[in-house]
């Protein structure tokens, strides 16, 4: 047994900051790859928070959930990057401003 000197609030603040940075990246950048990376950043913030809560509550289910989130994130990135390659083949860029086929 060891004593953890950090409170769970520190982890809450850190995960909130990381999540907000990820949201900002999705909103600000126009490059699809960087938008994907921002989504990964958000997922990681939530993973960190789940692990922190699981440790502070002495319940290992949170860590199992993090494991599943990592699995789903890997599958999601695979399919997403395949879609990105298709978009690049069809439009010749990875700028989301080129995806205006459904616009008025």
């Amino acid at each position, binding site marked *: 047994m060891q*004593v953890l000197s950090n409170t769970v609030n520190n982890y809450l603040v850190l995960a909130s900051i990381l999540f907000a*940075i990820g949201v900002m990246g999705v909103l600000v950048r126009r490059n699809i790859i960087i938008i994907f990376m921002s989504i*990964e*950043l958000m997922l990681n913030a939530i993973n*960190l928070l789940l692990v922190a809560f699981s440790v502070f509550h002495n319940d290992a289910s949170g860590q199992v959930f993090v494991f599943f989130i990592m*699995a789903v*994130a890997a599958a999601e990135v695979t399919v997403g990057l395949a879609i990105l*390659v298709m978009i690049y083949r069809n439009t010749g860029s990875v700028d989301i401003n080129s995806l205006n086929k459904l616009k008025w």
Partner: protein
Amino acid sequence: MDQLVFLILSIISIGAALAVIFSKNPVYSVLFLILTFFSIAGHYVLLNAQFLFIVHIIVYAGAIMVLFLFVIMLLNLNKTSETGKTMLPKIAGAISGGLLLIVLLGAVKGLNQSEASQAINADMGSVKNLGKILFSEYLLPFEVSSALFLSAMIGAVMLGKKNLKDH
């Protein structure tokens, strides 16, 4: 000591995450994201989650980032491709993200302070313990995730093909 390591890792992860967002070159973004992932892995070590530390390094830094780098190099995107458009959407996005951060931090600030030090079970995040839980309580989600991987693999291959007519 614990607090100091936490502070250093937090500064590294937040700075690297900001660098991911604001780098002009996508390759630099990927490298900074790898740095962010390593600092988060350090946080897992601080929290005694050994299994997740290893899995995080292997899956994220070893597989997902390699995929990102592979796609960037494949599509030859390692040059700055910023369209010189108006700054209004960027400013609006930054303001929205900042407001979200303020809301989240305000919600955290309103919480009760948990006790500063708490005895934690150092063996909870070990491979043995998590494996027991994963294969007893969470066996069905584990098996379903294999079907998820299979469908994701098939989907990626179908999407990656040039066209389905010629083999």
